[in-house]
């Protein structure tokens, strides 16, 4: 088929109607995720000391930065569903900024529990305890929103599919982490690193691989 005939065929088909703006997609996804997490939070029940914890400035700040990280990752994932990343190349790096702020806040809050010098030994103790329930819960909280975000991203044409896969997973799992922080009454930093943060890193790597196969625009 020569190029002119191809153009003629495509013109007859016509251009597709534009997808909703990434901000709109983010709001819709956040609404669905919020509803699901609200239901799960109601089912499992929030931690008994939640009122006291919310009064703690550092805990509140940690939750705030977690929210910022989750929302910015969702926004970045929807931007990455466009071939040109919605012409906002900085968007995919924004969650790293919030992640850094969240890490600093979480570490500062944890310093009164375990001295920094003992964190590695505490981590090896935490690892030996085998708290597999935590990553399982994170996965439970993250899988439905994760599936939804993957499906929405797939509607677009992601050319940076590895980024899109990992960022979409990061968004879903960070909401899972957030909910678990509100449910589980365990603030041990070693436990949080080993059984909450590291599984998320692992899941993001997995999301990258899934992105390669599920999101690749062909």
């Amino acid at each position: 088929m020569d190029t002119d005939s191809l153009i003629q065929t495509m013109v007859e088909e016509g251009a597709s109607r534009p997808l909703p703006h990434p901000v709109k997609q983010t709001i819709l996804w956040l609404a669905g995720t919020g509803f699901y997490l609200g239901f799960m939070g109601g089912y499992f029940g929030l931690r008994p000391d939640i009122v006291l914890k919310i009064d703690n400035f550092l805990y509140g700040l940690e939750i705030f930065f977690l929210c910022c990280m989750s929302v910015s990752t969702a926004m970045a994932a929807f931007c990455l569903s466009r071939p040109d990343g919605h012409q906002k190349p900085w968007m995919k790096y924004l969650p790293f900024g919030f992640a850094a702020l969240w890490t600093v806040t979480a570490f500062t809050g944890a310093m009164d529990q375990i001295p920094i010098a003992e964190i590695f030994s505490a981590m090896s103790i935490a690892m030996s305890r085998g708290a597999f329930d935590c990553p399982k819960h994170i996965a439970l909280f993250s899988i439905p929103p994760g599936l939804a975000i993957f499906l929405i991203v797939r509607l677009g044409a992601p050319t940076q599919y590895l980024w899109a896969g990992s960022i979409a997973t990061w968004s879903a799992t960070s909401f899972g982490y957030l909910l678990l922080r509100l449910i589980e009454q365990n603030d041990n930093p070693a436990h949080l690193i080993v059984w909450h943060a590291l599984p998320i890193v692992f899941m993001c790597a997995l999301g990258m691989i899934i992105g390669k196969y599920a999101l690749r625009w062909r």
Partner: protein
Amino acid sequence: MRLAQQGDKKAYAQLFQEITPLLRAFVRKKISRAEDMEDIVQEILISIHRASKTYDTARPFKAWMFTIARFRLNDHLRGLYKNRAQGAEISYEDADHNLLEAAHVTESYESREYINKLLAHLPKKQKKIITMMKIEGYTAKEIATALKMTESAVKVSAHRAYKVLATRAKEEK
């Protein structure tokens, strides 16, 4: 593109007419073979058509278009380098292309003697492979088993034979 997204087909056609030369110039910088170049330009045009829903009219069009063009071009080059890295000296498209050329030659002359004459220029093994593949109808896998070769070696050998045949046919013309 804004008009095209609203269903204006004239605007859509005009858009394609205007961007095609730009895309040709873009692809020409990386691809020298004319037929490959046109194939890639067509692939890019199809991609732009399929991705038209992702274009935000508030953003510059060319940046969006060239991102797609770069992606498709890199995809093509990646495939090319992968084939080379795997040791395949030919691509299937090349093989088909040469085969079609050879078929065209045979159709135009319609002479078995002519084919035999051409085949006589081939080394014994290549002649055997082409005879089995194109006259007797064996698959590359079956030939590989019969001649105790690997399947890819059969395909490479066949491709070399097509090249010789095409050259000879052109000379004879």
